[in-house]
């Protein structure tokens, strides 16, 4: 059985839960067992959020530190925050569009340079892909499609066919946005 531990992180409100939902449903559709863990409640309100998705797993939903095959980060800073979950042989797919935390705006701590984030991440895992996926979402037609762009970007590595993923995307997003989201998936996959 194909096992794949994927950690999806970002900021509350970015659509992290929908992203993990699409991948989870696609796994079930392909007959793979799947476990995932979500962030709800207080932590969600604009805070750092983490969703664990364990494909081919029959145990608990939390990925052990050092166990993730892939870290999909919808915001650059959050990749660093959750980097401990990545396997040294793993892959990090990181969006470069920043969401500046209030602690930075108030001048308490500077936001690290993107190059610093890239270099740090490169020292922690086998491969780092950093792209402006937000720009691709805009190109597809809606900034809200960022989560689907990034599913496209990680889809090449998942033990799930892209046809199944696209089928589930079409069923999971609002009907009016299906075309935009399918385009978003393709742009992410090609990037």
């Amino acid at each position, binding site marked *: 059985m194909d096992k794949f531990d994927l950690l999806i992180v970002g900021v509350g409100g970015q659509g992290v839960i929908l992203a993990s939902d699409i991948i989870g449903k696609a796994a079930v559709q392909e007959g793979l067992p799947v*476990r995932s863990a979500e962030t709800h409640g207080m*932590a969600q*309100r*604009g805070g750092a959020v983490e969703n664990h998705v364990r494909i081919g797993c029959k145990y*608990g939903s939390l990925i052990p530190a050092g166990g993730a095959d892939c870290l999909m980060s919808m915001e650059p800073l959050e990749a660093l925050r959750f980097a401990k979950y990545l396997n040294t042989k793993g892959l990090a797919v990181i969006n470069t569009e920043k969401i500046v935390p209030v*602690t930075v705006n108030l*001048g308490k701590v500077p936001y690290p340079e993107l190059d610093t984030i890239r270099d740090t991440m490169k020292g*922690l895992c086998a491969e780092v892909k950093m792209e402006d996926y937000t720009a691709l979402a805009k190109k597809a037609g809606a900034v809200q499609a960022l989560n689907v762009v990034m599913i496209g970007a990680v889809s090449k590595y998942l033990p799930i066919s892209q046809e199944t993923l696209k089928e589930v995307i079409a069923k999971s997003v609002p009907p009016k946005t299906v075309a935009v989201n399918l385009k978003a998936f393709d742009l992410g996959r090609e990037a």
Partner: protein
Amino acid sequence: MSKEYMLGNDAIARGLLESGVDVATGYPGTPSSEILTTLAPSARDRFHIEWSVNEKVALEVAAGASWAGARSVCTMKHVGLNVAADPFMTLSHTGVVGGLILISADDPACHSSQNEQDSRIYSKFAKIPCFDPQSPQEAKDMVAYAYAFSEKHGIPVMLRPTTRISHAKSDIEVHDITERQKNIEFKKDAERFVVLPKHTRVLLKKLNAKQDSMRKELAESPWNKLDLKKGAKLGIIASGVASTYVEEALETLGTPVSYLKIGAYPIDPELIKKLAGSVERILVIEELMPFVEEQARMYADNVLGKMTGDVPHEGEFDTLLVSNIIRRVAGKPLLQNHDVKLDFELPARPPAMCAACPHRATFYVLKSVFKEDSIFASDIGCYTLGTQLSAVDTCICMGASITVASGLSFAGVKNKIACTIGDSTFLHTGIPGLINAVYNKADITVVILDNRTTGMTGHQPNPATGETILGEPAAEISLESIVKACGVQSMQVIDPFDLETSKAAFKKAYNTEGVKVIIARQPCVITAKRMGIRRQQYEVLEDLCEGCKRCVKFGCPAMEVRNGKAFINDTCAGCAMCTKICQFGAIKAKGV
């Protein structure tokens, strides 16, 4: 049978439907809230479902329904069970007629809670069985078993999921929903349903007499499993979600270990004795309290766990943590910890109130009128995040803002005292506190943050919103009438986005003695958006911005600093408070 990708709470709701639930009650609380929300659409025209005013009310409603023969369920988070503890402790004595499942969702690591609390202790305290699922699938499967068990033994039962069950998703087996034969009738039986001392003394004997048969039956149930391995010197006992971590860890340990998985209480001592008889040492791995461990110690020697310092007392576990606990005990090399060391500080990203949250506006006015040395008592809800604005000095549990403020007042502190409490929290347990404050002559300002919803837990309606869980219209309970009926002489209603009027109201309260109530009314920005309200966004005119950061200190996530000047990002939801805070007229409606 088919498989669906489901949230643990949705799986539990599905289990309730498949078991033919008749009455469902509860009060929202993370991580339990989605159970009723998911159940609601199926309830329409078929069975009764409600958001109750609080957990005590919820459990009593469920008890009444059960006594009439209905299968009932009552959902809450762990701290909600404290509120329901009064009926809970005696309900075990009277027992039930229709099956009654109390679902109390625990939150190890306090993801969204004021404490870590182990509901299993409550089940033992009340002498009722408790089901402790290891996975969302097991949580669902336990529901049908729990109803049958509850009816067979005439006892309420507890289902205790934790955050990583309730808010985990997995592939879930679903079955058809069939109509259940039911007989709804309340048969009078004062010796059972009227707990006079002479009745309850007998009921206690009956409750105690049930324990042995329940224990024996649960030992044979699918939830408790003993797996003795040949040549094993170490035995592990694990419960709840921790058992999945143990099972994953054992896969790569490379040494035979005997294993007792506990998913239902009370535990039959025979299970522990059998394990103890075949191994040299027993390691107990469970989150929260050493509940299983204490019982293991009664029947076995050489028990390791929290009480010997081998297992952490706090927080939630995962496979790495559990692997290394086992490896340390088994004398195996530890797995590498993956803590990342950075040579710079990682900026924190704490949760914050949303852009255009009305609470932020209310806190801003409160802070601008009440001086720095005022004391701000607060309560449980989104507005607890007001601590980031230095507008929350105390918070302990639901309803405790008005009462703690009263205590400060009665103690004779010289400072002005103001407290904040949400609409749902006020109705939950705030009202008795307000009556008490008026009756006993406190000198406090009470701000009811009426955002027309129960925000933090996911926007459930409450009695003041005039809508039921099914979205049907209901009598809209008037906060103003309640406040007046509590004997409050000074009450004002404000729109927090109307800065000048709000300031005047707070100044009046500041200068008035006694109990003053200000109802700050403005819908939650998330519900407003869902209702289709789209407000004008705002932008900073760079030439006029002096970079003073007054607007940034307001704490709105839409407000950033770019090149030393304020910048409003796309999350702006148009409350326009920043235009009133800016002294240079540098913030204007976008595109106007």
